[in-house]
Structure formats: C-alpha cells, structure tokens
C-alpha cells in the first residue's frame, strides 16, 4: 500500500493594494509581503469592513478568498 501524499493546502487569493496575490490559507504578515513583492519594513493592514488592523511580520493568520490587505511604506508626522 502506498503512503498517502502529504496534504497540499490550496492557495488562497487575497488582494494586496487591490492586486490578486496567492498565499497559503495559514500564513503570516511576512509571507503575504513576500508573495506581494512588498519589502518587510512596509506596513501591512487588513481591512475587514470598517476595521483596519495592522498585521505584524510574525503574526500568524488565516486568510480568506478576496480578503483585502493594504501595504504602505509608512508615514511620519512632518
């Protein structure tokens, strides 16, 4: 009897700055930035309705199809 193939998780398509990006369903802020070509020092936000939550690089999260993220270089008071 052959061994079962390791479970392959289907990637999920999320939106980063309105552009589709594929990531594993269980991912991190860093992985999302990597997949989207966003430098790790950029800030990443997850928009859920009226809420906008910052996602840290080492933060683990479950993502869902078409979930919306925003990446930005950051702004300072000037």
């Amino acid at each position, binding site marked *: 009897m052959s061994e079962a193939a390791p479970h392959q998780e289907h990637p999920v398509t999320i939106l980063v700055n*309105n552009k589709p990006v594929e990531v594993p369903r269980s991912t991190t802020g860093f992985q999302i930035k990597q997949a989207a070509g966003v430098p790790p020092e950029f800030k990443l936000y997850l928009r859920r309705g009226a809420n906008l939550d910052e996602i840290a690089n080492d933060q683990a999260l479950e993502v869902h199809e078409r979930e919306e993220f925003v990446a930005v270089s950051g702004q300072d008071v000037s």
Partner: protein
Amino acid sequence: MSAAVELADAVAAAVADLERAGYALSASATGDGGSIVTVHNFRFGERWLPESGDLTFEIAYNYPYAAIYPYYTISELNLREGDRPSALQIVDWRGSRYTQVSLRATNWNPQIDTALGALAQVEHWFKCIG
C-alpha cells in the same frame, strides 16, 4: 464621483481603487492630469469630535511618482481628550479654513505605494493617536 476626463491614467486608476475599496468620494480634475479627491464621511474614530468628516487631498499629475501629501479636513476636528497632535494644523487652503493633516510618506515607493495605502495609513493614524 464627478466626471474626470482630464485625469492621467494612473490618477484615474487610483481614484477607481479608492471607490472600489468602498470610500464614498468625489473627485475633480486639477487640469494638469491630477485630481482633488474628497472622501466623504471619513471615519476618524470615537476618540475624535466629530467622529467623521470630509478628508481632502490631491493626487498629483505625476502620481505614483509623487506621494500623497498633505490631507485636509474640517477645521473644528479635535480629540475628545487631550491636546491636538502636532500633525494637525489649522491652515487656509483654496479659500477655506481646514485642519491640515501633515502625514508624509518618507519612503514612498511608486512601485508599491498607492493612494489607497496612504489613505489607510491616515485612517490608522487617527485610530491610534492619542
């Protein structure tokens, strides 16, 4: 949104991105390819009085090579408690009095940064300040 036939392609795309993200906005052409965008009922959050209001900014003709800066909102905006943050100044702009929101993208990257992201950052700043 108002007709904006004179917008540069990248500017028009940025305005469309903001609309797609659910912001209620009006946009007018500056005549050189840029746009003055007003987001209506922009949510400042419960720490602010009022909790929401118009937020206006210019997307310059050479966007995305120019960052979004500054932003203008209602002059009477204040924290419910505590002093006004230094990023907020009262200014006259286009013949009216506004609160200028002086948040500048110091490392703006035109390949990645967007008007949508800049606005999200402002939204987050209002939520977290104080």
